[in-house]
């Protein structure tokens, strides 16, 4: 059975029209006119067990709204969600008890109390047996290096520490499904690396299904096997990353350093675009879907003796921008 099934999800927000002019506050309060905003238009997808899926889109595209609908926080205007066969809207408590959720911007830990206290409370809440709790926490402590701030109040933690603590908290009851909403936001490079490693372990070693929303394209590239792109409330892409590159067809950059003199012919194949010439270095853009790398290099060799070749794939960011 699929871990996540979403069918024709739609969410419409009705906000009152703000009246301008005199007594605007009062008139707004009493007016019945509302403005409808369709945050999510018609989204359907299936995610199987053990998948690590990235969910990306520009701000305001409907990412958070989708996640909130999947986790039962919001009720869709229409459409259905099933998580491992359960309905988060009709059976919220049972479904939610089998999920892990991490919101990057907000902690689920108790602000004024030491980190370990939060785990005790959460264990109680999710019905985690003491032995299981101890076992899992020592595992996480090792993977995430939690020991150093075990007794520190949450409000005193750095962002990186808090995020690690939150991740451990979300996995305390050993859910099979994990939702992450911008978990690496605001973190430094080391912290990001540490967290990505943890997530990779969760997915590859423990077989957890993970849905990740993020603005950091490195997160996607390093962790996800599949990516879904949402824009204006609709899915504009759902597939693997390599095929995303192919679909977009952004050109590869090749920088050739020639030894000695070289001569560019008058007629150049259209598949090759010359974008820069600087002394011995010629930069070209090629579309590898049209010509294979070998053929392109053969062509470039004809122009002179090649001393060095440098190839640069298009940035994932650039690709994403194309999709947006």
């Amino acid at each position, binding site marked *: 059975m699929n871990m996540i099934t979403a069918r024709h999800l739609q969410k419409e927000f009705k906000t009152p029209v703000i009246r301008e002019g005199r*007594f*605007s*506050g*009062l*008139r*707004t*309060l009493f007016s019945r006119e509302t403005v409808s905003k369709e945050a999510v238009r018609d989204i359907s997808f299936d995610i199987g067990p053990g998948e690590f899926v990235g969910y990306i889109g520009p701000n305001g595209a409907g990412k958070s709204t989708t996640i909130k609908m999947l986790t039962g926080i919001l009720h869709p205007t229409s459409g259905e969600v099933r998580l491992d066969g359960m309905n988060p809207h009709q059976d919220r408590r049972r479904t939610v008890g089998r999920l892990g959720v991490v919101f990057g911007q907000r902690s689920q830990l108790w602000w004024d109390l030491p980190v370990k206290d939060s785990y005790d409370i959460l264990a109680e809440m999710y019905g985690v047996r003491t032995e299981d709790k101890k076992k899992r926490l020592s595992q996480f402590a090792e993977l995430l290096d939690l020991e150093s701030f075990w007794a520190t109040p949450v409000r005193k933690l750095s962002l990186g520490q808090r995020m690690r603590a939150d991740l451990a908290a979300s996995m305390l009851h050993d859910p099979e499904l994990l939702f992450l909403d911008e978990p690496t936001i605001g973190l430094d490079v080391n912290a990001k690396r540490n967290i990505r490693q943890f997530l990779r372990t969760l997915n590859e070693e423990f077989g957890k299904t993970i849905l990740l929303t993020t603005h950091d394209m490195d997160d996607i590239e390093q962790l996800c096997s599949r990516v879904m792109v949402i824009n204006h409330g609709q899915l504009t892409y759902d597939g693997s990353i390599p095929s995303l590159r192919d679909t977009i067809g952004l050109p590869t950059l090749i920088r050739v350093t020639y030894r000695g003199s070289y001569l560019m012919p008058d007629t150049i194949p259209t598949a090759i675009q010359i974008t820069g010439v600087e002394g011995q270095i010629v930069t070209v853009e090629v579309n590898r879907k049209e010509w294979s790398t070998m053929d392109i290099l053969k062509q470039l060799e004809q122009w002179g003796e090649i001393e060095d070749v440098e190839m640069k794939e298009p940035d994932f960011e650039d690709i994403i921008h194309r999709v947006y």
Partner: protein
Amino acid sequence: MLYFTLASKAYSRNLQYRGAHMVHNLASAMFGYMYACLWIGIGADHTLGEYGTQGMISYIAFTQSSLWISGFLTNGLGIPLSVRTGQIALDLMRPVHLFTHLMAREWGQIAYQFVYKSIPIYLLFSIVFSLHWPSDVSTLFYAALGLAGAAYLSICMNYIIGATSMWTTESSWLHWGNHAMMNLLAGFFIPLEWLPNWLEQLAWISPYPFLLYVPTRIYLGFEDGSLLWGTLLWCVFMTLICLVITQVLRRKVEVQGG
């Protein structure tokens, strides 16, 4: 010019919340309505002195509306907050006297509350209870003076309360104590002549009657302007206290470094 700017800034800052304030006015008016109902209930079984039932309703209507001029001012004129953030040191260093600075701001606030709270509430009462408005110009004039004096006194009192926050974090005691005194000694719900004698005498030693009771009595036509001399006396006295306190405050900041 500066003072006018300070005042008008405070005034316009409130404008964006007009809508919410109107809804709040409804709630405020309800409290007044309840008090009026209380007096109507009492008036059914007892004679109500020189006021009569209708007079007491007018009394309540006027005092409730005036609360927004002399009762609900910014807590300590904003000084406690400013002390907590440390802003007070900056304020004291300005080439403007702290007292007049904060007072100007508060006048703006009071002006807004007068236009958008006192007046709508009083209009509402007038309609609901068919109140008579004084036709005599001098009555209105003296009542206006009384209200202005009441507002000024209230500003001074809030200033003094606010200033104490430099020495103690418990200035909220004074603020609430002030509130309680208003309830009992300012003629908030009961005309002062109906208080037990000892309490009535106590009230007149304090400035509280001049906040609500005096302007109301003048407005209702029970007093001429002579009580206003008392208002004036208190205004002068309070001003002196405020000036002295400012000196003390400034010295404290200079010594302690803010």
